[in-house]
């Protein structure tokens, strides 16, 4: 090995980080059932509303942007020609 191994070069480190991340997700959902949130809207009363909304928004964003890409993507030097 000529080059030094960095933190993210080791797969076990990444695996470990992802595991911690998944546990945080789990804890946040569990917290929603234990702690009481004040709500203004009817939607907010749904358990884990924010978690579901965040996940769905992100997926929707990526899907819609991929459709947008089909419409507006051109070559890199499009305006220079």
């Amino acid at each position, binding site marked *: 090995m000529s080059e030094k191994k*960095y933190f993210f070069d080791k797969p076990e480190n990444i695996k470990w980080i992802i595991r911690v991340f998944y546990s945080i997700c789990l804890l*946040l959902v569990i917290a929603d059932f234990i702690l009481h949130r004040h709500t203004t809207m009817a939607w907010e009363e749904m358990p884990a509303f924010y978690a579901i909304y965040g*996940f769905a928004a992100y997926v929707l*964003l990526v899907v819609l942007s991929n459709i947008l890409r089909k419409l507006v993507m*051109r070559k890199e030097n499009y*305006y220079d020609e």
Partner: protein
Amino acid sequence: MSEMPPFVLFFLAAILVIGIRGPVRKIILLATPVIAALHIWLNIDPNILSTYSILNIELTLLRVDKLSLIFGYLFCLAGFLATIFALQVNDIKQEVSGLIYVGSTLGAVFAGDLITLFIFWELLSVSSVVFIWARGTERAIDAGMRYLIFQILSGLFLLAGALIHYQTTGSLVFEHIGLTGIASWLIFIAFGIKCAFPFLHTWLTDSYPEATPTGAVFLSVFTTKLAIYALARGFAGEEILIYIGLTMMCFPIFFAVIENDLRKTLSYSLINQLGFMVTGIGIGTALALNGAVSHAFSHVIYKSLLFMSMGAVLYRVGHIKASDLGGLYKTMPKTTTFCIVGALSISAFPLFSGFISKSMVMTALLKEGYSYGWLLALFASAGVLHHAGIKIPYFAFFAHDSGLRPKEAPVNMLIAMGLAAAICIFIGVQPQYLYALLPWEMEYWPYDMTHVLAQLQLLIFAALAFVWMTVRGIHPPELRSTNLDVEWFYRKLLPAGAHRGLIFLSNTRDMILKNTVAAMRNSRDSFFRWHISKYHLSESWPTGSMVLWISVMLVTYLLLDIFVYK
């Protein structure tokens, strides 16, 4: 002394540095924003009005209240940070125009009438374009020209609006205007161009990515936030601003997701952030307006931090394409860390600056019953996490290893980023100091259990979607591309249309000439073949003889007039 407007300091410094080289010039550059901030703090009393009469018009060069004060401090602070970041650049053009740019922004913030505002509004445009042109590439020069056209146009709208406003009301004072007539709409559009309203936004996404690595940091701060200040003063509570703001929040995030140039991604993200402020101004309650102003404050710091980190990468690597970067954390760990702080702040994680300001606008939306607007804003918040919170740091510093091993950013850049990152965290942890500066009275504290839990769930699960897609390999890759936006109309359609139009016109001209000239030739030829053409009177005469005969005729009329018709 207490009546000296702060812009004077910057303009004096700009003249001074032209003749000075070396470290002394750098000291002047750094000291000017600090002295200006101290001058505002120590010498200027709040509620001061200092007016000057020029040509029977009262110009108010200094109007101080809580709204102009907080923006005054903000611009001094941001100017100071950007100057530190740009310290290694030895380019007198950029240094002088930086001073004039910051100075004119302060001039506009403290302007008490529309004419003074207009003068600084235009100075701002002319001085800022230098940061784009200084890059020197053909693309930058063209983009700078388009930028300048938009900015000058905005100034013309402002001037026209101001003059009509003066005609109808007899006053030039810049206070609440409201959308009431043609003058107010003209001024509204002028502010709207500078604020990058939808369809008027392309000057921003077109030019900022072409600016110099350090110039983009300056540009990202002043122009658009001055427009926010102007809207907050002139059009607070106009409902149309809520819908404009919501549009600004939502549409740029799609473009930001697919954009490959990371500074262009940040430019789209800038519009998205402006959307939160514009919405707050549109709601117009004390909480919402304070939200808009405080969001402008925290936004300026984390957005310049993000532009700094991408500027540092551009400075070291030479380009800023997400598709060709990655793995830079190995050799630029400090820049990476600061960039992550900026990313956490813009995503509004609790304990970072975005959280304590954006939440005010969100709460105001809920309180005033805009529930669909609130859902859109929530969607946009998840979008911010994608393009600014994850995409910027992930594709630049992690993702696949690009093999690039650039050096860490220069020390002055690291200091500027470190200070900006520290301010982001300080505002996030101790928001009471920022809240104390806010112009309107309110009771608000962002840290309660509901709010923190909701925000964490939203962000962490949006991040979970990213992790899930990346692990599964279905997250769309970054691609080298140009993405069409509204600018297509004037960069492709209009030139192509103009080109076709010109060809059509020149063909028509040729056809008309050919036909009429041929017809005239034919009639002349046929006339000459006729026997009458042989007589003296039908010959063509020189112009001189015609002039002679006309003068003879005129003299005859004159003589007749004098002697006959008395």
